[in-house]
């Protein structure tokens, strides 16, 4: 198993290099003076039309591990998440100020290849959204749009991705059945597997367990802990206990501001900001 994973990693890495038209060119944008950082956001302001949704957010996320973003609904945590893979580009009339770098590269330059960015920064949504295709075709979707046609390689990727998402044993005998026939929790793990198949380095998760039952939630939380050995995971959750259980760092958002950011253990036991304390002790929200 381990062998196979390495194998497919190599082959995929190769195809990626061939597909990528300018792997190095964007490096020119790198701010050399700044230290290397997985995700680095400086003085971010974000607007929907004339409404400002994020105020002066600054954050540095280190490689690997889980970072959780908590806060009452409407506080801007989902908006912030969608800044990181530029999904907000799809909403007309949005505007952004400040600097967002991933792996040291500013991702909001006119030359940024958004498609490559999204391959590097995968995303899992609040409601499981498998395509109305078979389980196999769902996982193979990303590699296929990348131009991979080889059936054997696709099968390998499908298997490793499903194993990576702890779904392989449940679905290995019915890969050709429609993905929509799976249970909600399975669908969500399928969506995680689908994201893994593109070999991202960062995984964004937008309240991934809010639409599924507690047992399935448990499985996904375990999965997140497993995945964070190889991926940087940034998860938005409305559930404070979940953040406390699975994350290494936690950020608290309130009304578009990042109130506090720190190690999960210290933020929950010893918050620096009064508003954080109010929130985690349940005084509002």
């Amino acid at each position: 198993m381990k062998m196979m994973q390495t194998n497919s990693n190599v082959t995929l890495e190769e195809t990626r290099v061939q597909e990528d038209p300018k792997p190095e060119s964007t490096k020119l944008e790198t701010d050399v003076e700044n230290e290397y950082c997985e995700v680095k956001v400086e003085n971010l302001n974000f607007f929907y039309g004339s409404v400002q949704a994020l105020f002066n957010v600054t954050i540095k996320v280190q490689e690997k591990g889980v970072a959780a973003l908590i806060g009452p609904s409407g506080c801007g945590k989902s908006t912030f998440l969608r800044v990181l893979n530029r999904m907000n580009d799809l909403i007309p009339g949005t505007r952004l100020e400040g600097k967002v770098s991933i792996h040291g590269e500013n991702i909001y330059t006119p030359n940024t290849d958004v498609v490559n960015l999204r391959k590097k920064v995968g995303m899992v949504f609040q409601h499981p959204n498998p395509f109305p295709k078979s389980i196999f075709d769902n996982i193979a979707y990303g590699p296929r749009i990348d131009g991979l046609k080889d059936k054997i390689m696709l099968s390998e990727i499908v298997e490793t991705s499903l194993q990576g998402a702890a779904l392989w044993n449940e679905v290995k005998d019915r890969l050709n059945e429609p993905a929509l026939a799976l249970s909600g929790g399975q669908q969500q793990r399928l969506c995680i597997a689908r994201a893994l198949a593109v070999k991202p380095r960062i995984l964004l998760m937008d309240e991934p367990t809010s639409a599924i039952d507690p047992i399935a939630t448990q499985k996904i939380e375990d999965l997140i802990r497993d995945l964070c050995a190889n991926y940087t995971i940034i998860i938005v959750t409305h559930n404070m206990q979940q953040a406390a259980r699975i994350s290494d760092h936690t950020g608290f958002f309130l009304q578009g501001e990042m109130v506090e950011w720190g190690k999960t253990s210290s933020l929950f036991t010893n918050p620096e900001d009064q508003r954080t304390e109010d929130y985690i002790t349940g005084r509002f929200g």
Partner: protein
Amino acid sequence: MKTEALSRGIVLEKKKSEWRSYELVGFWALRLTLVLVLLILGVIVFDIVSKGAGVINWEFLTQPPRVGMTEGGIFPAIVGTFYVTMITIAFAVPLGVGAAIYLNEYAVQGKFTRLVRMSVRNLAGVPSIVFGLFGMAIFVKIFGFGPSLIAAGFTLGLLTLPVTVTASEEALRTVPKAYREGSFALGATRWQVVRTVVLPRAIPGILTGTILGLARAAGETAPILATGAAFFLPHLPDSIRSQFMALPYHLFIMSTQHHAISQVRPIAYGTALVLLALVCLLNLAAVLLRKRYRDRVAKGL
């Protein structure tokens, strides 16, 4: 005191029941308008079916007209209508679907998209005879196609364009946003999103629009009067530059232009029945397809 209140209650009660009977009469009056619609359709269909059915046989459908069009069948008109509607679809469907994809998937909603949508609606309102004038001037004369299948097909294509755009847009709108987001998040380009996720879901709806457009084009007469329809042709059309006979034009001729009108009346009835059946079947197919498709969307599959 008590009795007064009681009697007032009785009066109110009486008023209420009076109202209820008024209401019943009113509802029935409204229902009758729909019965009238049904009756109109019923009388038309009954008249044409009862007088046309006797004419229709294998020979009528497969033989050309003979003896100055007083005998024989309507085969060339069936073939001509088939050919011209195929050209219509080849013209209108790619353009219509393309415009719908632009409006729904690519465009930033604003002044330009409003202008395009307004143009679609106004194009739908242009009288068919004006399309005929336009087609004659531009396809027959300026492009030099002459009266031909291609000139008539393009003219009909313009006329059906609003149908295909509107139906395709409706089909695209029913594709859930979550599919698009999921695809974008995996690093798909916009065209990849459209090609791999959106279009496969929208195909049944687009097909419905295509069939509706087909039905519309098959029944139209005014746009082909001067763009290619012929009174009588001894041969079937052999290229897209040929003139052609068409069912609706044939019916028009057989009922108003023929030298022996009463003698050919049965043929006219037969033609009317074939045309009506063709158009109704196409519409029925579209309605059924759309219903199945909407049910599926409603179930979220």
